[in-house]
């Protein structure tokens, strides 16, 4: 291993600890080579997709048992909550010691790919998991950096839709909106703040939701968030997109300002189920939640989030969870077998229902809902009206910083009443500065 001179100096200063530390860099890359996987145990970190970590365990365990029966490979499952997952992955990447297989939010794929910690699905590895031909192309496109070999493959697909309360729409003599303007005018008609009823509900305090809408509205305006790999958050299209989204609360006044404090991704859907809001934007996995809050699947309809008249018809980012293998796994072959198993039609069919995920495989019917219309709507959105989030290493920083900037703008609207276009631009500029600093 080559030590630059200054490294040696640093090592000398820091002493034993750092020498050991540098050794970490070299000690990775255990490689595969085991001819038989029988008796191998894989460690698998799964993300929280179900109602609780315990629920996830219950859903996944039977599938892992099936896998063990087929291959003799044991899978040691740990479900990691979202509050910990990214930090755990980052520390694993940093130290070179982690699980064999891991779930990642697909928007993390580019930056994690850039760290070089994950196994690239090159031709041989891709063949080992069943070939790239089986995946929906747009979904597979989320797997890494633009123009490079993907380091993750899609596992669960998700897409945004506009949920509307059928009865409230019928009572007001309205039909589901097809343009942003219609959506706003419908929402205005349905808003009666004196009765505590609002046209729309938003998770306006959740940075992940907010950044997704910054992306969707920018795409609708035909604006790009990155110039090459450099952030560009203050162009006219991005700013007016964010403004259009903020205006739902600020000037259209169809969103209760209290939504600025909704951070969990669940409060708006609870309001929707209780009839307090007529429309929400949510990913396709809202069903079980709405049901738990007392709203039957027949009570609501779903359409694509509409674009403004003349805008591009983009309704969603390619949402979802991807599956990656750590490069320094000692059980590469077994890990790839496991990836193949998880992305097989059979497993996708079983997990699609409890996790309300859209199939990431070509030509496979969705199982997440019994409502054929809703299934078709979401499949259409996922396959035809979605775009991948920016496939650049700074995507992670973009999410946090733009998302938080929009959070803060909503907070200002809720607490102080208004933000100007220049406030929005300033907020996005500061997000851009922070994002640049992360690179």
């Amino acid at each position: 291993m080559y030590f630059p001179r200054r490294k040696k100096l640093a090592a000398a200063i820091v002493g034993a600890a750092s020498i050991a530390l540098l050794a970490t860099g070299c000690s990775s890359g255990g490689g595969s080579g085991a001819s038989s996987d029988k008796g191998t145990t894989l460690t698998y970190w799964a993300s929280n997709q179900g109602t609780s970590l315990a629920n996830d365990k219950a859903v996944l365990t039977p599938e892992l048992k099936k896998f063990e029966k087929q291959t003799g490979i044991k899978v040691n499952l740990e479900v990691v909550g979202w509050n910990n997952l990214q930090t755990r992955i980052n520390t694993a990447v940093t130290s070179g010691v982690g699980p064999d297989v891991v779930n990642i939010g697909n928007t993390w794929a580019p930056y994690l790919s850039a760290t070089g910690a994950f196994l690239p699905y090159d031709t041989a590895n891709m063949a080992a998991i069943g070939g790239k031909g089986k995946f929906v192309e747009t979904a597979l496109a989320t797997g890494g950096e633009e123009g490079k070999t993907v380091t993750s493959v899609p596992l669960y697909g998700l897409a945004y839709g506009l949920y509307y309360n059928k009865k409230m729409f019928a009572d007001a003599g309205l039909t589901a909106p097809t343009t942003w303007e219609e959506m706003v005018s419908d929402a205005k008609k349905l808003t009666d703040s004196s009765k505590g009823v609002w046209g729309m509900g938003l998770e306006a305090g959740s940075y992940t939701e907010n950044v997704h809408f910054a992306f969707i509205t920018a795409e609708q305006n035909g604006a790009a968030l990155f110039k090459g790999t450099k952030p560009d958050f203050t162009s006219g299209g991005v700013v007016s997109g964010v403004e259009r989204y903020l205006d739902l609360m600020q000037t259209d006044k169809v969103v209760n300002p209290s939504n600025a404090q909704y951070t969990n991704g669940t409060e708006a859907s609870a309001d929707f189920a209780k009839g307090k809001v007529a429309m929400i934007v949510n990913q396709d996995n809202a069903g079980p939640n709405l049901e738990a809050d007392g709203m039957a699947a027949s009570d609501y309809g779903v359409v694509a989030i509409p674009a403004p008249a003349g805008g591009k018809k983009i309704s969603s980012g390619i949402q979802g969870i991807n599956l990656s293998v750590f490069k320094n796994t000692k059980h590469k072959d077994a890990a790839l077998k496991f990836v193949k198993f998880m992305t097989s039609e059979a497993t996708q069919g079983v997990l699609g229902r409890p996790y309300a995920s859209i199939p990431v495989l070509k030509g496979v019917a969705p199982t997440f809902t019994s409502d054929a219309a809703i299934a078709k709507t979401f499949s259409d959105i996922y396959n035809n009206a979605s775009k991948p989030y920016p496939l650049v290493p700074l995507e992670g920083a973009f999410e946090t910083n733009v998302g938080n900037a929009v959070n803060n703008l909503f907070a200002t609207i809720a607490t102080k009443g208004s933000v100007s276009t220049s406030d929005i631009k300033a907020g996005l500029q500061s997000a851009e500065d922070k994002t640049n600093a992360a690179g």
Partner: protein
Amino acid sequence: MRETTGIKVFRTITIVILALFVVVPLYIMITTSVKPLGDVQGAFSWLPTHFTLQPFIDIWRTVPLGSYFINSIIVSLSASVLSVVVAIFASYAVSRWRFRGRTVFTTTVLSTQMFPGVLFLLPLYLIFININQTFGVQLVGTRPGLIITYLTFTLPFSIWMLSGYFDNIPRELDEAAKVDGASALVTLFRVVLPVARPGVIAVLVYSFMTAWGEVLFASVLTTETSRTLAVGLGEYSTEVNVYWNQIMAASLVVSVPIVVGFLLLQRNFVAGLTAGAVK
């Protein structure tokens, strides 16, 4: 001594304000834990309208709280007992001998209190990984890793408090034991420690509470099998819902043993502080 009206008014106002300040959050915690989730998500009410103990049953299912409990007990007990043992030896040395490096030792130990904990996290994780690769001792994701971390975190305050306590125990006791032919260690165990019991208990309580409530390091240094209660409490906010009533119920379950233990030992704690830290 005669009390003026002024004193009485001051005392009443102080007590009422502070008691309310302390009690309201505790009251909210208790009442929320016996409400159904629907009521908790609605407008606030002081009294539970639909009393239920269901959250106290659900908490064990939503999150494997039972095994977290066991982890927390093992980790906190081991860390606090070991911390006290290590602190006793170190404090005795600092209090009774003047040796080379003594000032460096005490200064370094105490200045660690100024270092922001966030920065320790990643380096510590890396050091643990390296220990594993060099010596084959697994520290990340295991209880021993967490135990030595907590034990060290509480050492500075413990050493400082205990050495203060030892300083206040007259040297004559040591001298008398020495004359009787006792060695330094025998003196420590037979003569000094019995007198220093409140100080030892105070340190024990402090270390236990620190270990019981720590969140940041536990969230990175533990896996599912070694996770502690303080981290586990965060798992009641899931992708699907925030189970406020269960959060409060679990918080109560987690708090009660430690609060009761602390209150039982509080006299010792105060006495330990008085002699150790305050004098």
